[in-house]
């Protein structure tokens, strides 16, 4: 069993706190050590928290539509900070308005996220993916 510390939070000027609490609860139940930096989190705060705790993954939530602006450059900032290989997930209502999912997903994969989740994804799905990506067996 390897390192299971992850950082999660809601990026930008977004204050949606409910899903954030549920992610914390669900990942903790699933055996992860969850460092929750909460809402209104900047890219720097995610990275700082990941470095301080030696996290293996950063899970970024965005519910309010500005995710596209807020997430740009996060991978590059991770590289500059010396954690360029960290696993990055993003999920939520990532863009303004109802848009086709595939192009949105492509946009975020291109930004350097390892996985991207559409609205309405249950935490269990991301938990299963993260266990796979970290080679953790149940």
């Amino acid at each position, binding site marked *: 069993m390897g390192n299971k510390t992850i950082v999660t939070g809601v990026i*930008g*000027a*977004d*204050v949606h*706190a*409910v899903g*954030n*609490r*549920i992610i914390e*609860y669900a990942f903790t139940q699933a055996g992860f050590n969850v460092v929750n930096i*909460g*809402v*209104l989190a900047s890219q720097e705060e995610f990275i700082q928290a990941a470095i301080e705790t030696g996290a293996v993954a950063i899970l970024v939530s965005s*519910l*309010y*539509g*500005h995710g*596209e*602006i807020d997430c740009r450059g996060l991978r590059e900032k991770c590289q500059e900070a010396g954690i360029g290989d960290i696993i990055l997930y993003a999920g939520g*209502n990532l*863009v*303004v*308005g*109802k848009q086709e999912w595939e192009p949105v997903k492509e946009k975020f994969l291109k930004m350097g996220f390892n996985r991207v989740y559409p*609205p*309405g994804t249950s935490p269990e799905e991301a938990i299963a993916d993260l266990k796979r990506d970290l080679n953790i067996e149940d």
Partner: protein
Amino acid sequence: MDLVNKKWSVDKLMSIRKEVLATWHTGKDVEDIEEGIKYQKALPKSKIFALKLLEAKEKGITLVQPRAGVALVNEHIALLQYLQNEGGADLLPSTIDSYTRQNRYEEAQKGIEESIKSGRSLLNGFPAVNHGLENCRRVVENVNVPVQVRHGTPDARLLAEITLAAGFTDYEGGGISYNIPYAKNVSLEKTIYDWQYVDRLIGFYYENGVIINREPFGPLTGTLVPPCISHAVAIVEAILAAEQGVHYLTLGYGQCGNLIQDVAALQTLQELSEEYLQKFGYENRHITTVFHQWMGGFPQDEAKAFGVISWGAATATLGKATKVIVKTPHEAMGIPTKEANAQGLKATKQLVNMLKDQTIPSSKELEEEKEIIKKETRAILDAILKIGEGDFAKGIVRGFEAGIIDIPFAPSRYNAGKILPARDNNGAIRLLDAGDLPFDKEILDYHKKKIQQRGDAEGREPSFQMVIDDIYAIGKGMLVGRPN
């Protein structure tokens, strides 16, 4: 800062005003407050929000209002015109983007520029501060109905100065309702003080013959908030506003989903707020109500979403809310298109028109529900007043510290976050954990009994899992989150 619930002098307002207007360059356009008052006074009666609300209240009808806002001015005007003409909106909003709400005007500017470049709105609302006075006036001048500022801004002073001078006649928010659900690290002392400024500004307009309506944000976190919590916050904000000279107030409540509880909540909100304003000596205040269609997670399927919207429309009308804030079939996906927004309005209006001549008759269940909401709300308000040594401003700050008022699932660290709500077996919202709310044994036993009845019916012990199941339930097509 010595925070007290006491009316500010005009001198105090004007001296702080100078600092507020200097926080972004568009502030200088509203320096002459007399010019804003003059502009407001020249507006036709049809654009005065409070008058339209009072007329609806008198007639016993429910008005419909959407949420809407995009990054650019022309597009924003086109959106509002569409919602007015095609959607039949009785009242219009300008929903403000999230950067402006955090006073991040540089980022809002970036959003405006990127929206121009890409030909679509990259902001989730209308950045009114960046656009400034003249552009905001164009919004008001290009529609035929009253326009309200809807946002979620802890420090909304500059936004108020610009939009009120621009002819908006209703302003949403409050020092509690736009802090605890909308901020993480801002103290209540600061937001209540900053909202005293906004309320005093509106009081100043009133003293100069201008009627601006104020609407504390009722649904708070929109996540299983029991009526007593949102009522207590709404009434405290109403008192704080009234003290600063606000005369027209719309108090809000977010749909829970159980018809009896929702109707009881709407009726008690009107009754209790009038009672408390009277009791504390605020005469000639006009109270109307707003009902928010379900504020939690929505089904992705648009037909199912219309089901949720219609149930909210029916409840608002049967509860005789003065207005209803409408959701859209795109709710699960974020910001709606103008077409989807108009569809939500039309579905709502259909229900409003069909039900406007019907009422919910009094019943044992309705009276019992009203009784419990009143008892709980009074318990909280009286405890706030006591801990504040007779002062609601001091009391609400200390009350949050002590957890005698506590909002579920709020991001603010100034909120205790101890209470846990869950639905009972009929779908009404009760407390699985009442935290430090100042309830007597009778009230606590009532909640325990109600939740236990559901646990028994589902064959499980009530726990946090039940809360999570309830949060997801409506999105999955149910009201009560039953185990599979």
